[in-house]
């Protein structure tokens, strides 16, 4: 327990530094704007065009949107450090690799949470004009944070592999888009494999939570994606020394 506290202390320092880094350069504001424009379009198209007071369309496409936006958030986390050489300074500080990786994932997740928080306005406006089920709204936002954390760990792993931010983005995007879209192709595969594909699909687990049903299996899925990608990042950073 004492050790866990110590680990989190170091990770928090890294997270704090990275999070303020997002807001001291234009990239943070650009990513947030792009996200809000697309999210706004998704929401308002059902709200006004179809006259439905609900967030379903927004949450339905959120995994796809995240697969694009989250790797853009995480691409710089290690790649930039490797490129400028500050990686050497970072790795010679009295911090463990676990602390560094955890801190960076935490920063990206927090940033993503800040990014989606303005969309809470949609939930409020929906509540004014209709009477939405509160479960799916809460579930949707909880799921969104979990999804962001999972994609952030994948993105951090992608960033740990290279010193080129574009390459880091493409690798992260490729993995996340597969996890987002894999259930969309279920019509073409044998029914026996469907449950397997559903299990590895981030979209499937996210939609379950966003329905307002929190099942331990969904939580375990996101926890394992985070754990596996973090370990992969740690391996990447340790082995290439």
């Amino acid at each position, binding site marked *: 327990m004492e050790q866990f506290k110590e680990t989190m202390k*170091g990770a928090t*320092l890294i997270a704090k*530094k990275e999070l*303020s*880094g997002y807001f*001291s*350069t234009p990239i943070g504001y650009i990513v947030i704007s792009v996200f809000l424009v697309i999210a706004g379009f998704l929401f308002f198209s059902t709200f006004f065009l179809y006259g439905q007071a609900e967030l379903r369309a927004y949450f339905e496409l959120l995994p796809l949107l995240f697969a694009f936006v989250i790797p853009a958030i995480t691409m710089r986390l290690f790649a930039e450090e490797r490129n*400028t*050489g*500050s*990686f*050497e*300074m970072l*790795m*010679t*500080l*009295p*911090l*463990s690799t676990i602390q560094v990786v955890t801190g960076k994932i935490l920063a990206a997740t927090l940033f993503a949470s800040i990014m989606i928080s303005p969309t809470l306005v949609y939930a409020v406006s929906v509540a004014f004009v209709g009477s939405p089920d509160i479960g799916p709204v809460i579930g949707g936002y909880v799921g969104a944070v979990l999804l962001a954390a999972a994609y952030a760990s994948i993105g951090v792993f992608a960033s740990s592999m290279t010193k080129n931010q574009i390459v880091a983005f493409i690798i992260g995007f490729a993995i996340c888009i597969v996890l987002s879209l894999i259930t969309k192709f279920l019509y073409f595969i044998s029914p026996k494999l469907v449950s397997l594909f559903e299990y590895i699909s981030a979209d499937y687990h996210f939609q379950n939570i966003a329905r307002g049903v929190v099942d331990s299996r969904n939580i375990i899925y996101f926890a394992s994606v985070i754990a596996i990608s973090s370990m992969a990042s740690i391996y990447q950073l340790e082995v290439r*020394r």
Partner: protein
Amino acid sequence: MISVRNLVKHYGQVKAVDGISFTIRKGEITGLLGPNGAGKTTTLRILTGYLQPTSGMVSVDEFLVNENPIEIKKRIGYLPESAPLYPDMIVYDFLQFMADIRHIYDKEKIKDVAIQCGITEVMHKNINELSKGYKQRVGLAQAILHDPDILVLDEPTNGLDPNQIVEIRDLIKELGKEKTVILSTHILQEVEATCNRVIIIDKGSIVADDSTTELKSARGKDIRINCVIGGTTFEGIQNALKNISGVKDIHHIRDDGQLCYIQILTRADIDLRPDVFNCVKDSDWTLYEMNREYRSLEHVFRELTVGM
């Protein structure tokens, strides 16, 4: 306090460091000298725990670098080559971040270090706006922030202007009074000016490891004394000087009628100038010039790394 044993590091097929061993005692300023690509940076990177050695062992105090890297990193202040800092951070925020990681909560400490490194006037600037000299100083400030016992500096004066070089060297010498300092460089004057011990590395191996003065005196090596003598011929000088013990050879450089230019070859650890002078005096010649060639570290370095 720092002990390196049979350190080997391969990058794929390339042997960057090939069996280096040395021990550094407390309070020494050691210069790691070598041509570019000799393995200096790699050695320092292993020492600071950034790279893992292919084989061999590095220990600081009682800690081994591959077993207890965190403990070692706490004791070392490290300035990597060309001071890679976070370009988007403000200097003060950067030092604050470093202080937090090192568990330093005393706000005065950052101020003290800033004064010591002469960066008080740039504390509010973005790091990417700084000149190379200031960046180097911020890097140095970061390295001494937690008052480490050991200071590892990789080419600390690289790319600085002459004034800045002098300032940084003075600062290193000041710090070296109470800390163990290891610095790498390919500039010989730097070692002569700051270090009291030199380790010369070439192609991944140590070719010399001694105190600066000892290396320059170079026991067993030859040195030349140049003389200009008037009132005699070369034959006369030769006959008189060859009786002095320690004279290995006498060369005739040239003769312009009145003055005779000669060169006396002798061992480096004895000084024959008084004997030559007395000989000239006794023979009633005139001594116009006499100088003993100064053996610089540059000589030693070229001898050891190129073989001339």
